[in-house]
């Protein structure tokens, strides 16, 4: 099973590497968003605003990055998938896109820090919250993308279907982030973090169970 997963992930990696346009597009998107924010905030930015803006950027990265996850499964690769169990397909996608997302966010955070500073004192809780939150975002969007890819107006569908589903994750992660930016630490965000983790688990479990039904059609 691991071999199949690795092959699937490698295949996605190859596709993305071959045509670099989507990746380049997103990187460009990130930098232009950050530079625009830098220009509008000329100098000092309050921690709360820093946090809010960062998560906004993160959300848009997430949607754009994961949007193409299922839409690029054209018919040419479709026949491969009749040979592989659907559960492994969704697992591979979940893993690949969470890694993809983490990479993009790391880059975004770097560029963001360069322009707008880094008012976070406690690194560990901030990073953990970021990783868990963005993992939830990418998983939810991956599942929604699989549903939206069956319809005709893909991009709009993803936003409509995805946005309500990610609200719990966003609320938890952003409030955690705000607490940390304003000087909190592990004990302050503990409860929220556990809830966030359980929401992630629910989403992943459901994706694993439900994806085969989406795939069958």
């Amino acid at each position, binding site marked *: 099973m691991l071999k199949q997963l690795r092959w699937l992930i490698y295949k996605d990696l190859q596709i993305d590497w071959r045509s670099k346009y989507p990746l380049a597009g997103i990187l460009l998107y990130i930098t232009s968003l950050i530079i625009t924010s830098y220009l509008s905030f000329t100098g000092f930015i309050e921690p709360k605003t820093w946090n809010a803006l960062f998560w906004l950027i993160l959300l848009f990265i997430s949607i754009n990055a994961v949007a193409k996850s299922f839409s690029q499964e054209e018919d040419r690769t479709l026949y491969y998938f009749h040979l592989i169990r659907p559960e492994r397909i969704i697992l591979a996608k979940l893993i690949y896109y969470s890694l993809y997302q983490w990479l993009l966010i790391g880059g975004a955070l770097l560029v963001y820090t360069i322009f707008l500073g880094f008012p976070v004192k406690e690194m560990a809780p901030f990073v953990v919250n970021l990783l868990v939150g963005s993992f939830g975002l990418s998983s939810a969007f991956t599942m929604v993308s699989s549903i939206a890819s069956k*319809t005709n107006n893909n991009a709009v569908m993803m936003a409509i*279907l995805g946005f309500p*589903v990610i609200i719990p994750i966003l609320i938890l992660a952003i409030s955690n982030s705000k607490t940390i930016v304003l000087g909190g630490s592990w004990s302050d965000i503990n409860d929220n973090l556990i809830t966030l983790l359980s929401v992630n688990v629910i989403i992943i479990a459901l994706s694993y169970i439900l994806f085969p039904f989406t795939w069958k059609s």
Partner: protein
Amino acid sequence: MNYLLKTDWWKWLAMILLAYIVVGGLLFTVPRLPILNETIRVLHFHVPMWFGMLFLFLASVIHSIRYLSNGEHKHDIISSQLATVGILFGVLGMVTGMFWATFTWGEPWSSDPKQNASAIGLLIYFAYFILRGSLQDEQQKARISAVYNIFAFAALIPLLFILPRMTDSLHPGNGGNPGFNAYDLDSNLRMVFYPAVIGWTLLGFWVATIKIRYALLIQKTDD
């Protein structure tokens, strides 16, 4: 649900309960509370809308699951009609809530967590119907929307129950609101409130069964 589709007695129960609720809601004595005054009677009408909505959505999800597990098309019909009536109750709950809030909280929308969570919950089900509308093939429509129904319902639960408890809220019973905890337990109110939840929920299911029977008939005559 089959039982509800075939029997009638609970419809009479619903009517009797609702008549009782109207009489009791208007005539029984209520606790005298500041800010709320007489509007506390709205409790028997606004809150059961949300309970009814939740029961309807729960039944909708159960039938989505049943559709995925045995593929009978009637479960898809039942599931979507229940969701429709659920949305109706949700919208009514939201509108009545906003109206009530204008007179007691001062403004129709005060970004109270429960208000926001309910609005998003409704958005989820609107998205469910948009999804259904954009799929042509009957089987695919049924299957994909069943998947989304289950997925979105699971996202709704943390939204509605966990999050409002975590933050401050104008809603009674959340966020340390003074003076409201007393009325929750008032036995006079409870005498009307519990039947109200049952009565309005039964009414919701009655409307849903009518829509379901109609849709099933159309399906049968189409064959």
